[in-house]
């Protein structure tokens, strides 16, 4: 490597350390417990009941959600209030532009979306997906809803990939409920 090129590498050598004090990449907005309490304030008990999809169920979910399943196990909690089953709490991850976005979907006992919460958002742009108005678009949606970004779900400029992947994720959760939690 010649002297001139070596000299130019001084540029990134200075820039990279300068960028390190930038705000932490990962932002945890809610812990698991906080998300559970936010989505089901009336709950008295969350019973861990992870779903292990069979190959047939996996194919069903992928066909409906139009996205690949990265694994066959899904963290799910059965939610009870005063001894009654009131819904499901599903913890999920979807791709952001660079890292995973961790979010949770609350389904009522009939399988309709009760709410969506973002737990961890690690992307630079697109924190607007945490806005209640954007997340409220999913409320009441059931298996069969298209959740198509730009049509049934409004897009947020600058957060298109995050909006798209969360919409696909909720569609996948609804398919998972249809396949394994009915």
């Amino acid at each position, binding site marked *: 490597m010649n002297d*001139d090129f070596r000299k130019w590498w001084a540029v990134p050598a200075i820039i990279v350390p300068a960028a390190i004090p930038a705000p932490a990449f990962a932002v945890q907005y809610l812990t698991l417990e906080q998300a559970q309490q936010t989505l089901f304030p009336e709950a008295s008990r969350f019973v861990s009941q992870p779903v292990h999809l069979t190959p047939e169920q996996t194919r069903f979910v992928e066909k409906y959600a139009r996205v690949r399943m990265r694994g066959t196990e899904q963290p799910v909690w059965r939610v009870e209030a005063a001894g009654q089953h009131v819904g499901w709490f599903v913890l999920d991850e979807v791709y952001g532009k660079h890292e995973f976005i961790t979010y949770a979907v609350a389904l009522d006992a009939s399988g309709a979306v009760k709410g969506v919460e973002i737990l961890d958002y690690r992307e630079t742009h697109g924190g607007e997906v945490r806005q209640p108005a954007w997340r409220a678009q999913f409320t009441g949606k059931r298996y069969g809803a298209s959740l198509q970004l730009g049509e049934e779900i409004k897009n947020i400029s600058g957060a298109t990939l995050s909006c798209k*992947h969360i919409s696909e994720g909720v569609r996948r959760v609804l398919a998972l409920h249809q396949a394994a939690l009915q």
Partner: protein
Amino acid sequence: MKATRLGLLAGLMMTSAAVPALADENLLGYLSGAETLPEGAKEAYLWVTQRQDKGVGSYRATDVEAEYEYGITARLTGMLALKGQSIHTSGILIDGYIPGDMSYGLRASGIEANLKYMFLSPALDPVGLAGRIGLEYSWLDPHSGQDKRIISATTEFLLQKFFLDDQLVTVANLGMESTYARREPIDNLPAGFEWSTDPEMEIELKAGVGLAYRFAPRWFVGVETFYETEFETEIGQERWSWHAGPSLHYADRAWWATVTWMPQLRGGGETYPGQTDTDLHLIEKTKQEFRFKVGYNF
């Protein structure tokens, strides 16, 4: 020392603007995707490209480009750039192109402005499509390092398509650059050396494809290839060359970096007397190029 000052300036830019944002990052070194910056977003870039080896003598040129991009709307991004170059060449004499040894450090060499408009979003539409138009004025010949007034206008179409849950990004670029150039006279030219100072018109066409895959959080590995050819008023097709090489890209919350190796695989057109690598174009191109890009969002 100028390079060190530039690095310090860039470092100061970093520390003085610690806020988020990341959008129109360059996953590859030479080809571009169709995405634009979100409205109101700002991004600063620094490119360093080293071109070296003409198959004879010693040739080493370093191009530097400092860019500022702004999201005018969610679909329209504007860019301004200041360019510089350094060059060290010895033992190369190419009639009409390189009149002798030249050696200097970083000098300002040109300015550029462009607009990029996204017609179709790669995340929302079946395929992303953007158009980019640019205008550049420069005053140093990037090949010989001599004084040369150059005005260039570029038009490009940029396609982008996601695959594999959007973890695989593919791009295709097609562009044309029209150039008006006029060399400044040189004293003490070698005897019989041709150095035309008449205005010249050139048209360059460029087409390329590339892909980048996110193999781990924040990390992309990519490969890209492109073909370039240039037509000049007096001699028709002056050159063509085919390049291909790998890229590695890293993105953090506020900044990203891409490093690319881009060797010339094949080339043709004009050759210089005694050129041994006749399957390469080495008058205006080199055997090897390395590029480092860093972008910072604020």
